[in-house]
């Protein structure tokens, strides 16, 4: 091993570098800075991508919703609501429809705390609240994995300003796990308390349904309650047969608008669009981070090329002398690639320390997850490869320097 290192001239390269530290040090620092920022930026991108990839629990490709705003006076909201839902259900291609108080991932909704025991001073488990009827599960396209759906007799009207909750609820598996020590099956049939004292029995568990807020750490915790809102503003959530969503969105909008002139139908939006808009900021941030990574890597690459070219121009005669003394073209090329590898090693060691340090700060300040060591290793390897690729052209130029430069070349 030592013989191999000796043949690779690593010791000679290192000692020569130590006598010309400034340029090498600047490049090493640039590599360190690039690694520090790159690894943490990739980590942040990964976190965002993972968030964006989380399933909402909904049948997103075949669902949409719309807002119904009543402006007419002396309006029977309850009758009109039932008529609207009936008309929508009868539209060919519609699988199910429900009135709903909030839309998953839309950014706005209701939240409450659920407690396993009643009491004012107890801390509840936060959950998003979706008020739906017995068609809610089918309309949302969520999967009931335990218990049973609401019956039509379970559905109660909720007047504006009411604080009364119905006695049944269906909750997500994640909410059940949060409340019952990780065992969601324990939740079925249990009575929990909402608004500190009101008992609610868990009659069903659904696999997943995300809350309206994608940045909330409890985004997977949601509950369905069998209620219909009695008010002048409501939302209808509609699920269509596969592939018919886009065709039915304008049809249903027109049908509802034509059926009753005392209200406005607006904000007809697909769930896919809602998801896209919900993660627009994530996408933009990822694009910016990716741009930063690419620009930084390019600057580092060009810095390496520049330093290597400067070094080669300064050492033209020295290279010619090495060639005269018997160095092959490959040995000259290898010299510069190994020199870069040594500089890059110093840079990535500093950079790895910097990346971990920055991550510790990010974790402490923004409650991010700790950096994956695998990502750090990938970053280190990637920058070593970038260094080698960047130096390969100058090294090739150096290898082409004629040995005759030893007698004719510049000093």
């Amino acid at each position, binding site marked *: 091993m030592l013989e191999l290192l000796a043949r690779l001239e690593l010791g000679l390269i290192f000692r020569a570098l130590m006598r010309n530290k400034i340029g090498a040090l600047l490049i090493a620092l640039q590599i360190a800075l690039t690694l520090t920022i790159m690894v943490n930026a990739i980590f942040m991108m990964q976190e965002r991508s993972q968030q964006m990839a989380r399933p909402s629990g909904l049948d997103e490709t075949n669902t949409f919703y719309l807002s119904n705003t009543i402006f007419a006076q002396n309006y029977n909201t309850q009758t009109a609501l039932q008529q609207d839902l009936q008309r929508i259900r009868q539209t060919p291609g519609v699988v199910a429809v429900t009135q709903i108080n909030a839309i998953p991932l839309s950014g706005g909704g209701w939240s409450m705390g659920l407690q396993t025991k009643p009491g004012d001073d107890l801390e509840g488990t936060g959950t998003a609240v979706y008020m739906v009827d017995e068609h809610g599960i089918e309309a949302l396209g969520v999967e009931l994995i335990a218990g049973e759906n609401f019956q039509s007799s379970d559905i109660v009207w909720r007047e504006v300003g009411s604080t009364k909750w119905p006695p049944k609820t269906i909750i997500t598996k994640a909410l059940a796990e949060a409340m019952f020590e990780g065992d969601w099956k324990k939740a079925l049939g249990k009575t929990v308390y909402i608004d500190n004292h009101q008992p609610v029995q868990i009659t069903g568990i659904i696999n997943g349904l995300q809350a309206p807020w994608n940045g909330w750490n409890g985004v997977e915790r949601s509950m369905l309650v069998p209620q219909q809102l009695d008010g002048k503003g409501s939302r209808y959530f509609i699920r269509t047969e596969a592939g018919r969503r886009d065709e039915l969105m304008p049809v249903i909008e027109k049908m509802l608008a034509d059926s009753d002139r005392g209200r406005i139908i607006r904000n007809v939006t697909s769930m896919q669009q809602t998801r896209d808009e919900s993660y627009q900021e994530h996408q933009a941030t990822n694009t910016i981070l990716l741009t930063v990574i690419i620009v930084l890597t390019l600057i580092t690459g060009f810095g390496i090329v520049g330093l290597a070219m400067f070094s080669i121009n300064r050492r033209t005669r020295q290279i010619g002398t090495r060639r*005269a003394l*018997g160095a092959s073209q*490959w040995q000259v090329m290898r010299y510069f690639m190994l020199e870069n590898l040594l500089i890059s090693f110093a840079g990535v060691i500093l950079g790895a320390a910097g990346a971990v340090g920055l991550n510790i700060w990010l974790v402490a300040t923004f409650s991010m997850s700790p950096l994956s060591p695998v990502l750090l290793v990938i970053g280190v390897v990637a920058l070593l490869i970038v260094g080698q690729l960047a130096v390969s052209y100058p090294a090739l130029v150096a290898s082409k320097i004629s040995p005759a430069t030893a007698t004719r070349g510049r000093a």
Partner: protein
Amino acid sequence: MLTMNKISKSFITDDVATHALRDIQLHVNEGDFVSVTGPSGSGKTTFLNIAGLLETSTSGEYLLDGEDIAKLNDSGRSRMRNQKIGFIFQSFNLIPDLNLFDNVDVPLRYRGLNTAERRKRIEHHLDQVGLASRMKHLPSQLSGGQQQRVAIARALATSPRFLLADEPTGNLDSQMAQSVMSLLEDINKAGTTILMVTHDPSLAARATRQIYIKDGHVSELTNKNSNLHVVGEA
């Protein structure tokens, strides 16, 4: 040892051909000490470069140790330079960032010798030129004469059969020049063939053979070895 048969070298720049060497005929035997003189621009350095495989001829045949150089690729020529030829340059060409030990080590690493063998050779040859005690010094810490001695040690460390010296005393004062010249004579007496380019007629006269180059043509001025015959042009 070294045979050049109708060696020519021309450079073409801006469609103008410059003939640096024309149909050189030369044979150098093992153990010769050949000095090469001639006016500036006569082709001395080109001749030395071709002899030392630092550049290739445009035409002609060059045999070194019986091997046809034209048949060697770049790697083959590098190997031959490393194994058979030692170089001494006018400007010493030591690597300024490396100490004396490491400077002498450079060609030995290209040879692929193990650490112990390299160390033995470096110490021996630095001792031979009287600089063993300064092996950790940088070239910049030495005088010109001392630097040239290091360059000689570096050239000898690979045990070359053929030593090429390009104005080895050109940058030295007369006392240092005499000292270096004496060293080269000792090396030659020990059996190493030397080809030395010089401007100094008195140093050239100390060689066993004197070759003169003018306008790319070679002629032999003197040959102290009576049994040798050199083919040359007037």
